[in-house]
């Protein structure tokens, strides 16, 4: 745990450089399972990437490459918009 700063040490308005920002893994907020890809069924339309509100769709260049479960909050929007059935919600412990 880093030492907490005094008020005079804070940046003006709390505008923080990326290096100063603690990155909490908000994927821990998922409560209703996780989206799991079937790569064979993926047509690479990237609608999941476009719709994901947490930027948790991982691309390799412009190719769908999976889901970043550290940040996926399990909203299932990607499953909803996937036209090819390549994404489905699965319980956490089966994934």
């Amino acid at each position, binding site marked *: 745990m880093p030492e907490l700063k005094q*008020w005079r040490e804070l940046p003006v308005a709390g505008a923080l450089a990326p290096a100063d920002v603690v990155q909490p893994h908000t994927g821990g907020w998922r409560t209703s399972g996780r989206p799991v890809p079937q790569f064979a069924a993926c047509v690479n339309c990237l609608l999941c990437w476009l719709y994901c509100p947490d930027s948790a769709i991982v691309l390799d260049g412009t190719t769908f490459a999976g889901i970043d479960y550290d940040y996926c909050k399990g909203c299932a929007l990607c499953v909803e918009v996937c036209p090819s059935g390549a994404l489905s919600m699965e319980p956490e412990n089966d994934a």
Partner: protein
Amino acid sequence: MSAPDPQLLTGGEAVAHALCQIQPDVVPVYPITPQTPIIQTFSSLVADGAAHTEIVNVESEHSAMSAAIGAALAGARTATATSSQGLALMAEVVYIAASMRAPLTMAVGNRALSGPINIHCDHSDSMLVRDSGVAQLFAENAQEAYDLMVMAPRIAEHPDVSLPVLVCQDGFTITHAAEPVTMLSDDEVRAFVGEYRTRVQPLLDTEHPATHGPFAMPDYYFEFRRAQAAALEACTRVVADVADEFARLTGRENHAVEEYRLEGAESVVVALGSSAGTVKDVVDELRDDGEPVGLLKIRSFRPFPTTALRVALDGARDVIVLDRADSPGGAPPLAAEVAFAMAGLDVTLHSHVYGLGGRDLHPEAIRQVLHGEAPRYVGVRGEPCPA
């Protein structure tokens, strides 16, 4: 150079001309009486090519302040304007503007808050955002509204401040009443306000990306609020410095307080806004009759000039605070400030509420107030309450 001729302008027009001379880069704004003449006049000036400002016609005051924050933090000199319900709708975002340290300026035409719905002057709208962390300067007349508007960007953008500054003028009484106003030249105003500067990392500096408005848990929220309070504490000195510089340029005094005939004054009225002008007339009349009375006018309500007020009022016997806003069930806002500032001094505080919803304050009522003959609520039918 020779003094320019005064021009006949309403307070709203005077502030619009000041804005035109300041040339903000962005003005997101939504019309509302009695602010409308400010943006109406300013829009005409921009349409005529007198300023390069991008006016953003937003869909509400909530959006106006939201857009203003974005513009100011992106690196654009930004101003807006509002009144009453507009300020109430905007209030949520006014707090955020202060917390994000957006150095913008806002002209306020003070108007009563609903209900009942009313379009005329009182200070309840300003007092609604009293604790938001913005600076609030109150004008007595159109000239002061112009002067304070020219001073406002310098205060807002000072590195130790970096906060929104509200320039408040009484709705209709100042916004719509024409008076002689002496303006500076465009070049003088531009030299006075200088280039836009902000201490906050500009949003559009993509070489140095930053997170703005981060979440703060109990381990940091309090430290951020303390830093914000320090900015308003520093603002007291900045208001004084900018007023000094403005006085050297114009010969006009616009400091945080104005002491009017306080020499040997035993009864002193404390007031904000246009009523101070009426009080001055009554003070002059009573002084002619040999009565030791005076006025302490507050221009800077936030930051509140606690020390200056305490010094000015030490030696008075009775201090009479006139509030144009009420705080039902508690002390009216100006009276509360004055009581805090005077704690421990051997003076008696009298608190009166007057002028709500545009009710006029007549000289006779001020005489009664100064003679201890007025009820707590001045000018309302049915006062004083029967024993």
